[in-house]
């Protein structure tokens, strides 16, 4: 290197930095790093990983001292395994059914006994007329109706066809299909046992399954309501909570509170864009479902939109509540995901039927607003019900909304005093 001479500076020679002596530093020769000895540190030899060890230990500190990370690392897998193992099965147990028995003889009684003792079914009600069937399904308590035709036992003895009708509620196509299969299997079993014990006359019990509301068992009928619910939760609850937490985190919430803006204005201003956006989203999904997937819209469109707006308010109030207990966006995100989205997907009956879950989880499922909303949507779209069938679920959502809002206001007031 040539002399570098920027004015009054001494000639600075790149070759060796020999005379550079800051107190105790030894002459530093960039050729080998041997003589680097800044006081008490030993020669640094990249062969051993001593300094990296310290770094790894530090990372463990971060993990073990953060409750949230621990919950995710250790709690979630355990919870999920337990859930999937015990609760989230696609098998059905204790499905509620109704029976319309025109014969009421011992054969039908035997078949019924087999069915109810199988563990899959619970006999909820004995119907007296076919007119009741549609209504029962609309109410949503019965998953399946079994109809025994007239003169059942006689038909069997005379070698004639004895008919059993199986009518399932296919607004949940998986469940309906499974239940129909179970029933048919039980009946076949009975038939086989009859064949063995009877004379040479062949026995013919022909079950005819009929799936109401969703004859083609399109699973999209199950997914569209679920997707709308999750979307509204995502946009209205999670995004709102994150947005409010962000103001707190970057410090602008302070400014807003000191300004003439009233707190109610701040909140309304925060949630309005999300309301608009989520309504647009929900309507798009409905349109897509209707036109592209053939999802029926048998009920009242206005009622559906009103219920959707109610659910939006509910999701917003949850988002606001979460933001009052979250100091940072990250916390808001985690609470929303772990406390809202995951339980909604797993426990609301969206994918896994609630009836199979242990009592505890069924109770928890009742606390999920999404569960009630899915019932409402399916009711309106697939079964065409009016308000008189879903007033209970609607009321529950209204009460939940009031509760969340009340709690949020209380939290807010506490911070202000």
């Amino acid at each position, binding site marked *: 290197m040539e002399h570098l001479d920027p004015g009054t500076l001494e000639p600075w020679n790149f070759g060796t930095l020999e005379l550079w002596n800051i107190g105790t530093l030894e002459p530093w020769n960039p050729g080998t790093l041997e003589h680097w000895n800044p006081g008490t540190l030993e020669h640094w030899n990249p062969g051993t990983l001593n300094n990296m060890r310290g770094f790894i230990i530090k990372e463990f500190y971060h993990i073990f001292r953060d409750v949230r990370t621990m919950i995710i690392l250790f709690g979630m897998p355990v919870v999920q395994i337990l859930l999937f193992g015990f609760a989230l099965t696609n098998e059905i147990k204790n499905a509620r059914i109704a029976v319309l028995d025109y014969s009421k003889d011992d054969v039908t009684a035997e078949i019924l006994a087999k069915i109810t003792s199988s563990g899959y079914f619970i006999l909820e009600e004995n119907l007296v007329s076919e007119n009741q069937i549609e209504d029962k399904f609309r109410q949503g308590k019965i998953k399946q109706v079994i109809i025994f035709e007239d003169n059942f036992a006689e038909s069997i003895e005379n070698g004639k066809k004895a008919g059993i009708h199986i009518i399932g509620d296919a607004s949940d196509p998986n469940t309906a299909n499974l239940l129909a299969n179970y029933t048919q299997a039980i009946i076949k079993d009975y038939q086989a046992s009859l064949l063995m014990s009877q004379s040479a006359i062949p026995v013919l019990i022909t079950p005819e399954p009929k799936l109401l509301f969703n004859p083609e068992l399109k699973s999209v009928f199950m997914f569209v309501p679920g997707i709308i619910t999750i979307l509204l939760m995502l946009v209205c609850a999670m995004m709102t909570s994150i947005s409010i937490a962000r103001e707190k985190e*970057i*410090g*602008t919430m*302070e*400014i807003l*509170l*000191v*300004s*003439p803006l009233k707190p109610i204005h701040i909140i309304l201003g925060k949630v309005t864009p999300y309301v608009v956006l989520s309504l647009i989203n929900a309507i798009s999904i409905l349109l897509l479902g209707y036109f592209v997937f053939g999802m029926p819209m048998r009920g009242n469109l206005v009622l559906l939109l009103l219920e959707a707006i109610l659910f939006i308010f509910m999701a917003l109030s949850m988002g606001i509540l979460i933001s009052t207990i979250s100091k940072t966006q990250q916390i808001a995100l985690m609470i929303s995901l772990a406390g809202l989205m995951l339980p909604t997907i797993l426990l609301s009956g969206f994918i896994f039927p609630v009836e199979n879950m242990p009592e505890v989880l069924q109770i928890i499922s009742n606390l999920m607003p999404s569960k009630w909303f899915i019932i409402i949507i399916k009711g309106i779209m697939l079964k065409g019900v009016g308000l008189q069938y879903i007033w209970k679920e609607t009321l529950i959502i209204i009460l939940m909304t009031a509760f969340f809002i009340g709690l949020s206001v209380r939290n807010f007031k506490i911070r*202000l005093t």
Partner: protein
Amino acid sequence: MTDKEHIIVVENLVKKFGSFVANDHLNFFVKKGEIFGFLGANGAGKTTAIKILCGLWKPTSGMIKVAGFDVYRETEKIKRNIGYMSQKFSLYDDMTIGENFTFFGGIYGLTSKVIRERMTFFLKKLGIEDYKDRVIQSLPLGWKQKLAFSIAVMHRPAIVFLDEPTSGVDPVTRRQFWDMIYETAHEGITVFLTTHYMDEAEYCERISIMVDGRIEALDTPAELKKQFECESMEEVFVRLARRYSKSSVISHQSSVRN
């Protein structure tokens, strides 16, 4: 000094949180157009007092009037007549300078015409008119501070509260910032600020120093230095803290020293 010229009047302000007394019978006033330094160690109760003066929290007891309005019943009017600049600078990072002015101006009820006028005025003063459409995130810290201050006084409030406004900026920027503060005070806006930089304390017209919830000193910097026989405000601060602090660490040091 008549009451009319006191823009902030505080008499026996007490603020308790449960049994903890954050503000213990504070008594002071701030004159109109004054630059008032509100000092104290961390945890002495400054932030609590400021929040009460801004109308955010209600006092436990005491008479407080800010800009002539009562802190118990007229907080809305107080909020409309004060400006506030927080330590974190409170500007929206993902919005431009222009958009921030528009937003905050709107909150304080300024019309778009007025907002445009004031914005042009401040941008010209700072020499950054060409940067009106720059996003805040891309600006250097010193600019953000001065912009935050401009926005805080944009609506010509009676008082502007500055919470540690110069933390983290270089000395040159600090000096420029203080020029802005002087100009603002000159126009009649009272400046109420807190700071940990003791040299800035010297720039204030009067200072109060809080220790453990009480005001233990209130006077001009010159008088305080004379009273405590110190050369600098820093020494005054340290002496006061040692003498009055109930913290055993600090008072132990003082007893050893004396």
